[in-house]
C-alpha cells in the first residue's frame, strides 16, 4: 500500500507541475499557456510490426486557450486535472461518471449560461487528456469504470487485503473483474491456459458444463467490448504467468473486432497499448468457415448487413489481417454474406459448444 501512496504522490506532483507551467506563462504575460499532448484516435494510430500491435503515432494536439474553440477544452483539462488531484489527496476512488459529476458546473452569466460539460463524453475525453498530460494511466488516479469483465477458474486474487478464489466449486457463478486494477494482485494461477469468450452468456454455458475442471482452464469475458481491467488481466496472465490465451468470438466482423481488441488493441486506446494488448493471444474462433464445417443449420445463420460487409472490406485491407488464413475467411464471409453467433451451436445441443466444438478447436491449435 505504501508503494501505491508513493505513486499517488508522484501523480499529484506531476499535476502540480503542469499547473505551475500554466501559472508561469500567465503571470509573465508573454504567451498563452499551452501544452502539446499526443493525439488520440484513428488518425494517430499506427501498426507496429515489431510489437505486433496498434501503437500511437507521432501526432500531437496543441492545447491552449488561444482560439475560441479551444478555450472550453483547455479549461476542461485544467479543471479535470485539479479534480484528479483532489481525488488522490482525499485518498478516494471514483468512476468516470463520478468525475463527471464532481466537475459539473455552468459557465457564463445570467443572459448566456452554458453547461461546462456538453455530455459525459467530454468529461471522459478530459480524463484521457490528464492521462496523457501526466503520463500516468487512469487506474493510478483511482478513476475506474463499472466492472463488467468476468473471470472463473483456478486463480487466486488479492483485492486490497481480501483473498478471492475464482475457482468457484459450485459452477454457479463467476467473479467480476475489479476495475480498480491497481488494488488487484494475482496470488496464484493453477490453470494451464486462459480462454476468453465474447459474451457472458456463452461463458456461463461453458462454465456450467464443467469445462474448467475438465481442461484446467480459466474462463474470461469482457461482456462485449472489454474494459481496461479485463484487457490488463489477460495481458498479465499471458506475459507474467506465461499462460497461453485463446479468444473465441462470434463469426461476424463485429465479433472479430472484439477478439482483436485483446490481440492488437484499439484505435481509441492505442496510446496505452503497451499496457493493454496481448499480442500472443490466439483468435481461434468462431471462424466463418466453421459455419459450414460444423454444419450450422441455415435457420441459425444471420444475413450480413451492409455495415458488416463494409467493415469486412475495411478489415481485409488491414496489415494485421494480411495472412492467407484471414483473407480466406473474410473472402468467404463477403461471398456468402452470412454470419453466425457462438450461441448458434446450441442448435446442436446445449453441451455441443463446450464438449465438442471448443475441445476440437483447442486440439487443432495444440493447446490441448
Amino acid at each position, binding site marked *: 500500500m505504501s508503494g501505491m501512496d508513493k505513486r499517488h504522490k508522484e501523480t499529484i506532483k506531476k*499535476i*502540480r507541475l503542469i*499547473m*505551475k507551467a*500554466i*501559472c*508561469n506563462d*500567465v*503571470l*509573465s*504575460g508573454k504567451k*498563452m499557456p499551452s501544452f502539446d499532448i499526443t493525439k488520440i484516435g484513428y488518425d494517430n494510430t499506427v501498426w507496429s510490426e515489431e510489437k505486433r500491435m496498434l501503437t500511437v503515432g507521432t501526432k500531437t494536439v496543441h492545447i491552449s*486557450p*488561444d482560439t*475560441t474553440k479551444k*478555450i*472550453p477544452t*483547455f*479549461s476542461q483539462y*485544467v*479543471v479535470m*486535472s*485539479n479534480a484528479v*488531484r*483532489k481525488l488522490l489527496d482525499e485518498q478516494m476512488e471514483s468512476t468516470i461518471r463520478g468525475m463527471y459529476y464532481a466537475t459539473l*458546473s455552468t*459557465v*457564463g*452569466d445570467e443572459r*448566456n449560461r*452554458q453547461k*461546462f460539460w456538453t455530455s459525459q463524453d467530454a468529461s471522459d475525453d478530459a480524463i484521457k487528456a490528464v492521462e496523457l498530460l501526466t503520463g500516468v494511466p487512469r487506474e493510478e488516479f483511482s478513476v475506474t469504470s463499472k466492472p463488467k469483465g468476468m473471470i472463473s477458474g483456478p486463480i487466486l486474487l488479492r483485492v486490497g487485503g481480501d483473498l478471492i478464489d475464482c475457482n468457484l466449486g459450485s459452477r454457479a457463478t463467476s467473479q467480476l473483474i475489479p476495475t480498480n486494477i491497481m488494488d488487484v494482485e494475482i496470488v496464484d494461477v493453477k490453470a494451464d491456459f486462459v480462454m476468453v469468450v465474447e459474451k457472458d452468456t456463452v461463458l456461463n454455458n461453458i462454465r456450467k458444463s464443467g469445462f474448467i475442471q475438465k481442461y484446467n482452464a480459466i474462463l474470461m469475458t469482457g461482456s462485449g467490448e472489454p474494459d481496461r481491467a479485463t484487457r490488463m488481466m489477460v495481458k498479465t496472465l499471458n506475459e507474467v504467468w506465461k499462460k497461453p490465451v485463446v479468444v473465441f468470438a462470434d463469426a461476424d466482423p463485429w465479433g472479430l473486432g472484439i477478439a482483436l481488441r485483446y490481440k492488437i488493441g484499439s484505435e481509441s486506446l492505442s496510446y496505452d497499448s503497451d499496457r493493454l494488448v496481448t499480442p500472443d493471444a490466439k483468435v481461434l474462433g468462431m471462424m466463418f468457415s466453421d459455419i459450414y464445417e460444423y454444419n450450422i443449420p441455415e435457420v441459425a445463420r444471420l444475413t450480413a448487413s451492409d455495415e458488416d460487409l463494409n467493415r469486412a472490406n475495411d478489415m481485409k485491407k488491414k496489415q494485421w489481417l494480411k495472412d492467407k488464413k484471414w483473407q480466406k475467411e473474410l473472402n468467404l464471409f463477403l461471398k456468402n454474406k452470412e454470419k453466425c453467433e457462438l450461441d448458434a451451436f446450441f442448435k446442436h445441443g446445449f453441451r455441443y459448444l463446450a464438449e465438442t466444438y471448443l475441445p476440437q478447436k483447442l486440439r487443432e491449435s495444440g493447446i490441448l
Partner: protein
Amino acid sequence: MASSRMVQLGSSSVIQTKSKAKISFSRKAESEFFVDNSALAGFTGERILYMAIRELIENSLDSCEAERILPKIAVSLKLIDPLNDLWAISCEDNGIGIRSDKVSVAVCSFLTSGKYVEQQQRGLFGVGLKMIAAFSTKDTDHPLRVWSKSAEETSEYYFELRTDIGTNKPIVLTRRDTKPKESTIRGKSGFRIEAVLRGRLSPITKNRIHDYISQTSIVNPYAVISFSTDDGMITFDRRTNIMPEPAKEVLPHPADMDLKTLKKAIGTHALQKTTIQGILCNSFQKLSFDKAKEIIRNAGIEAKQADKYSEHELIKIVNVCRQTKFQSPNVDHLSPIGERIFTVGMTTERTIFTKKENAISDDESQPKISTREMKPTLTGYSSRACIINNRPTIVECGLAYGGNLSYFKLYRFANKIPLLYDEGSDVAREVISEVELNKMGVSKKQVKEQFSGLESRSDRAIDLLPIHIFFHICSTKIPYKTAGKESIASEGELKKYMKACLSDLYRKVSKQIRHEMHLKDAENRLKLYKYYIPLIVDAISESIDVSAEDLTNSFLALVERHVKKGVSHPRSVMTNVENHAVPVERHDVRGQQKGSGSKETSVVTRSKKSLKMKRLDSTQEKIENFLTSSEELS
C-alpha cells in the same frame, strides 16, 4: 379648389329606394361620402387614433417646412372618458398657421387644400384633418377647438368648430380674436387643434403610434416632437438645425401629359386668347416655343384659338407628346432628406418602449414608457435619382449598424412619411432579400456563426445582423400598392434602382462592417474568456499556492492583448458631405417609362479609437504589476 375627380366619385353614388321599379339619383356631399367610406382615408376601426395622430403630425411638418421654420410639435393623446372610449387629442406646431378667414373650411370642408400642386408634400388630398373634424362631430358633442396665428396676420384667433356632414360646410360655434396676453401660441405663428374622438387603443395600435413617432423623428431630426400620453411623455429633441431644401412647385412634365392636364391648362388660359403653342410652353416644363410648334406640326392639326379644339384633336397632341423626346424632368419639386440629415437621424435613432409590467412600480406617477437610444457604431447613405412612370423619383437608402441594435429591421419612408403596415408586400422587402449579403463582404456562414446566439425570428442571415436599413422614396406620385398607402409596389424600374442603391451602400460599408464584426468577434471571445477564467483560476489555485487574484488579473490582461492582436484599424472613411443635394443626370425621356440614375454614397464611422487606447494603457500597467509580483512568487 376641389379636385374634380374626387367630386365625380362622390356624385356617382347611387341610393336605392324601396320601390323596385324606380331608381332615384341624388347627390352626396363630399363629407358624407368620406364619412361613409372612411377606409379610403385609412380611418378604420382601431386605426382611427393612429390615423388622427399621423395626419396632425404630417400637417404640422408640412406647415413648418413651407417656410423653412424649424418645427416644434407637441402632440398629446389622453383618455378622458374610459366608459365611452373618448380620447382628447391635440397637436400644436410653430408652422405658418392658417389665415383666420380660411380656418373653418381648411379644418372642416373635405377636398379643400393648399396642397393641390405639383410638389412633394406629405399630405395631398385635403382629407385627413377633415376626417378628424367629421369623426369628432359624428361621435361626440365636443366642438373642435382651434387656435391659429397665421404668418400673414398679427393676432391669434380662436375657433370652436363642427362639421355639417350633410353639406360639407363648417359650423362655426365660436370665433374670437384672442388678446395678446391670453394667447396660446407663443411664437410668431402657429396652429393648435384639440379634438375629442371616440376610439379604442389596443396595445398593437399603441405600438404603431410609438413607431410612427420615433420613425418620423428619424427622418425629421430637425424637428422637436413631443408626445404626451397617460403613460408618460416622450420628447424627441432637435439634433440638427439643417432642414432639407423645400420642394418647389413645378409645371407638369410633357411626357406625363394626358387629356385632363391639357384641358386644365387650356382652361386656365381661356381668357387670354392665346395659341395652343403658347399654352403648351407656359403650362409644361422643358417645352420651348419651338418644341411646341413641332408638336403641333407632328399632331397634324390646324392652327386656331386654343379653346376651339375638340377632344379628338387634343388627344393627338397628347399622343405626340408621349412619343417625343424631352429633357429629364426637373427635380426641384422633390425634397429628399439628404445625406447630412439622414445621417443625423440614423445616428440618433431612439425607439419608444413600454416598460415591462413587473418593472413598473405601484407609483402611478412613474412613466410607463421610455426611449432607448440605438447609438449605431456606423451609418452609411446612398441615393439614386431616376424616372419611374415619367415622374422623377429619388431613392435614398441608409444603413445603421452595431451599437444597441439587436437585429435586422427595415424602415420604409415615402415622402418622409413612415410606412408601418404591410411590410411583407413592400418592394423594399424584395429588394433586401434579392441583394446578396456578400456584397457587404460578409458570408452568411460568418453572420450565422457570430450572431446566431441572439434571439432571432428567422434563419435568414440578414435577419441576424444588428442592422437597420432605411429606404426613402420621394416622388409626387408614389406607386402605392393599396389605397391605404402602406406599401410600395414594384412599379417600373423602381426595384432595379432600389437594388442598385442598396448594393452600392453594401459595398461602401463593407470594410467598416467587417471591422465591426471583427471587434464584435473579439468582444465575444473576451466574454468567453471571462466566463472560463474563473474556472481555470480556481482549479489552479486549489492545486498550487498562488494568489487567485493575481492570476485572474494577469490572465485577463493576457487574453485582452491576445484578442486585440487580430483586430486592425481600418482607415475610417469620412466623406465630405457638404453637398447633400441629389444631382440628376441629364437624360432624355420618351413617352415610355425610362430611367436614368445618379448616385451618391458615403459612410460615416464613429471612431472608437480613443477609448481603445485608454484601455490598452491600463492593461499595460497591469501587466507590469504582475511581472513584478510573479518574480516575487518564484
